[in-house]
């Protein structure tokens, strides 16, 4: 990237990154930030798996363990997955729609630079309180249910971290929507947009709709604790169950915020390597919109056991199961795109195929959980943990990693090392299943989630799971190595990079020049 200074009007060194308003620079910042968070959140997961490798208490005390599960979840959701998809959006959306930059470049700089401070606010309490093991980080689960979270003595840190993250996401989303709606090249109608642009457009609307609700929830927590209100405080007539409703009204759309961009990425990758047009483009768009709409009316499937009326259980069961329909449309279309295609299996394609297969497993367990009668058994067990890791790790994260391999040659001008990257894929794809598949079994047998110790009957599968975890964690260091060595050098990439690639981003040289499409391209 560094030898592309045709336009010498931007600063270099640290100032380039601090003050940049260039969508490609900001995309790069987002991606590196999220990778850093992936490693931090990943190291918390290693602590969790190390403690759970054997029954009994071995390494950390229970509060520290709870802190690890909490921060692992929060860091991965808000630090790793969400910013990584924003990074891809920054890099790719302007190039895909033939725009010179994002609509509001300065706000773009802001949206990013808020993030490191939010992360700092979130993680700092961990280092307060004498020695590390008695750190005072949040330890109430990533869902921060009241009334437990209300007792946290550093609640203000947590609340302001969430506020900052929310502001960053909302600004980022406004920017993305303005870019897509107002800056498409002439001729780029909405129904000609690449699917990644579509899924991000819908994701951005979801973000603007639900991040403020989350901000409301944490604000209520804050005033309950410090200003004597009683939204969730039973003593003053409030209700902790209300918290769960507000949280999940945000929380369920949030899971789609994490997965939709990956749906888009996979919908770019599969046609490229199957050398066929995406099957059912219009139905993909409508299915995405339908999923987004439905995601607002199913939230209480996370709360089946709070003691809802039967009518509520039934309603939320039917509504939840309905989401499977548009989701199945998407899986069907990806499969149909590959059907009789001239497929080749370069690394991005491997990740995309793994995504389709493994995400579908997560979708099926989602259905099981979505039926109230069966969820009563699964609630708060490792089965839920297995479900959401299949959709989030082998779903959202695999999509993002596939996307990084797919566009890396465009960003750097160099091809990555195909052998090493395939090795990275196979180690990850196998170990992730060793890590999470057994969690279905111990979940069905009744092992509760968020516990540092467990009944010895679960020992064998926990051991297997931990081994898978360590291998999966370590294999991401290989990813880091591959990315860095691709930036440093490698076989030169052509403009089109992939034989079957279609779309505007593949018409500009590799690496993509600092400024692209200053004059809008002509769309046939």
């Amino acid at each position, binding site marked *: 990237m560094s030898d592309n200074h045709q336009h010498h009007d931007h600063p270099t060194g640290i100032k380039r990154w601090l003050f940049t308003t260039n969508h490609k620079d900001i995309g790069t910042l987002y991606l590196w930030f999220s990778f850093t968070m992936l490693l931090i959140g990943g190291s918390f997961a290693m602590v969790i798996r190390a403690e759970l490798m054997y029954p009994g208490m071995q390494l950390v005390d229970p509060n520290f363990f709870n802190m690890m599960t909490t921060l692992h979840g929060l860091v991965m959701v808000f630090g790793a997955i969400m910013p990584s998809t924003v990074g891809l959006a920054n890099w790719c959306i302007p190039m895909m729609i033939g725009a010179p930059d994002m609509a509001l470049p300065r706000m773009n700089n802001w949206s990013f630079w808020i993030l490191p401070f939010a992360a700092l606010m979130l993680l700092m309490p961990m280092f307060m309180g004498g020695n590390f093991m008695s750190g*005072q980080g949040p330890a109430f689960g990533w869902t921060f249910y009241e009334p437990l979270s209300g007792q946290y003595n550093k609640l203000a*840190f947590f609340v302001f971290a969430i506020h900052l993250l929310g502001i960053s996401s909302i600004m980022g989303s406004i920017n993305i929507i303005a870019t897509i709606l107002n800056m498409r090249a002439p001729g780029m109608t909405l129904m000609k947009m690449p699917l990644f642009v579509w899924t991000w457009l819908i994701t951005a609307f979801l973000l603007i709709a639900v991040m403020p609700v989350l901000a409301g929830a944490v604000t209520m927590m804050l005033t*309950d604790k*410090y200003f004597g209100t009683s939204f969730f405080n039973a003593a003053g007539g409030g*209700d902790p169950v*209300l918290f769960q409703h507000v949280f999940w009204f945000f929380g369920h759309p949030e899971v789609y915020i994490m997965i939709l961009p990956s749906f888009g990425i996979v919908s770019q990758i599969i046609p490229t390597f199957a050398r066929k047009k995406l099957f059912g483009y219009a139905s993909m768009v409508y299915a995405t919109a339908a999923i987004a709409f439905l995601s607002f009316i199913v939230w209480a499937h996370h709360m089946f056991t709070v003691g809802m*009326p039967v009518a509520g259980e039934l309603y939320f069961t039917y509504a939840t199961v309905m989401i499977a329909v548009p989701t199945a449309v998407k899986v069907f279309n990806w499969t149909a795109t590959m059907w009789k295609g001239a497929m080749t299996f370069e690394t991005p394609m491997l990740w995309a195929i793994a995504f389709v297969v493994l995400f579908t497993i997560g979708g099926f367990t989602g259905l099981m959980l979505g039926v109230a009668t069966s969820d009563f058994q699964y609630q708060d067990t490792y089965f839920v943990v297995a479900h959401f890791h299949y959709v989030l790790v082998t779903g959202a994260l695999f999509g993002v990693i596939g996307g990084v391999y797919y566009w890396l040659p465009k960003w750097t001008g160099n091809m990555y090392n195909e052998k090493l990257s395939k090795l990275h894929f196979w180690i990850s794809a196998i170990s992730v299943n060793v890590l999470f598949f057994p969690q279905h079994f111990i979940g069905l047998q009744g092992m509760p989630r968020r516990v540092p110790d467990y009944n010895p009957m679960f020992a064998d599968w926990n051991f297997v799971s931990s081994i898978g975890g360590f291998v999966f964690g370590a294999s991401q260091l290989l990813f880091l190595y591959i990315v860095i060595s691709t930036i440093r050098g490698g076989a030169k990439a052509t403009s089109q990079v992939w034989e079957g690639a279609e779309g505007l981003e593949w018409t500009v040289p590799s690496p993509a020049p600092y400024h692209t499409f200053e004059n809008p391209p002509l769309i046939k």
Partner: protein
Amino acid sequence: MTKHIHRRTVLGLSLVAVLMFGFGFALVPLYNVFCQAFGFNGRNIEVENGTYQVREEVVRTLRDGVDKNRTITVQFLANENKDLPWEFRPLQREINVHPGEVKQVRFYARNLSDKTVVARAIPSMQPSVAIKYFTKVECFCFNNQIFKPGEAKEMPLIFVVDRKLPQGIDKLTQSYTFFDTQQGKSDSVAAAVKSLVHG
């Protein structure tokens, strides 16, 4: 550059964000309306400031007489809140009643601190569907209870189980937790600042 074309988009979307922030708060009254309508969380028997109206169900339940063919076990639990230095227990752990029969039980509480405490008992029932069939004629939870330093009290709960209690439910658990109504009111802002400043 071309800021003006984005102005409307940005304003419109910001408005949506602000409205959704408001919607988060609107969920609070919405939730209460829902709970009232369906009778959850005991909100239909929650009493404002100690005034209590004998509801129609009570009258009907009493008029319909006692159903000797059914026996319901009612269990009582008293929870001690960690912020309140307090001794609190039911004087009967459980009793058997027939639907339609008026019963009285007593709870014992003692203030272990050297301060006067104004406390409020918050009820909770399992299974929650039974809440609207468990009618309290008189309850210490209707009012704030004032305890002088060291003061102990026995407090009554008079209740009747509605004859309409769905078949299949034969055990009810009624629990109470006392909360300090003054707690978290005065020195809260100072506490907020303190928690930000100190490690």
